[in-house]
């Protein structure tokens, strides 16, 4: 089976996020008040072949740990769903 994988990469807590901080500082000047906690990460999407959701998730998590994130500064969450939508 094939599975769509969505990886959400974020900076770990305590790691400075200069891009997020800059966006947050700019928002009031643009008329957006009350916005806080802005953080900037990245999203990686791909399709993976696996026997089932569990195997696809394990493969995607291994890929995250070894390549898609730098564990010194980043965390990731992985979402897996069968290609075509219905689970």
């Amino acid at each position, binding site marked *: 089976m094939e599975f769509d994988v969505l990886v959400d990469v974020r900076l770990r807590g305590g790691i400075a996020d*200069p891009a997020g901080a800059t966006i947050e500082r700019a928002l009031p000047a643009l008329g957006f008040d009350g916005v806080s906690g802005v953080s900037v990460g990245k999203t990686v999407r791909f399709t993976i072949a696996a026997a089932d959701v569990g195997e696809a998730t394990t493969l995607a998590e291994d890929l995250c740990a070894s*390549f898609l994130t730098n564990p010194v*500064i980043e965390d990731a969450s992985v979402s897996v769903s069968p290609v075509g939508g219905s689970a």
Partner: protein
Amino acid sequence: MAKTVGVVVFPGTNCEMDAVFAVERMGGEGRLLWHADDDIGGVDAVIVPGGFAHGDYLRPGAIARFSPMMGAVAGFAADGGPVLGICNGFQVLTEAGLLPGALQKNSGLKFLCQPTVLRVETSASILTGRVPVGTELSVPINHFEGNYTCDDETLARLRDEDRIVLRYVDNPNGSVDDIAGVCNEGRNVVGLMPHPERACDELLGSADGAVLIGSLLDAA
């Protein structure tokens, strides 16, 4: 016989000839090493130079560390061979696990291209053997992601083990503890964001990097 320094070239590397120039200026011989080869060819030291290896896609150094040549460089380092990572080369060495920590975007979100003053914090490394502690050197930086970061435990170890090789006198990029360069436990792998190879002749604005490249040749 002149000592030979291998200079690793990835697609997107752009400082390899500067590194060869600096090595030859200091009496060594520079030899380019293509990233897809897996043999360092008996060189006496290795420089991983600056640039944008593999376009810096995903993260600087993230793809470069999988190049076959990096396996050979890691083996050379494990045997005690001197390895120097400059700028993008420093990023590659952290991604490859040869040096601790990581390089983040500069705190001011600006690409910085300017002279900086570095303070030598230890003479016990392959980059600083010729330089007394406390010496200040003018060496340029040229980077967007040079903001050195690591966890508190790693920072404490780097301090306790005298592994912070260079600090910025006036921190330009937000690096933790003003760190400009660090070394591994064996002190034979050093990474720094500034470019000593671009400061080896007064015509370039500073010749202060020459003593660093000279130290590398001493260690080779």
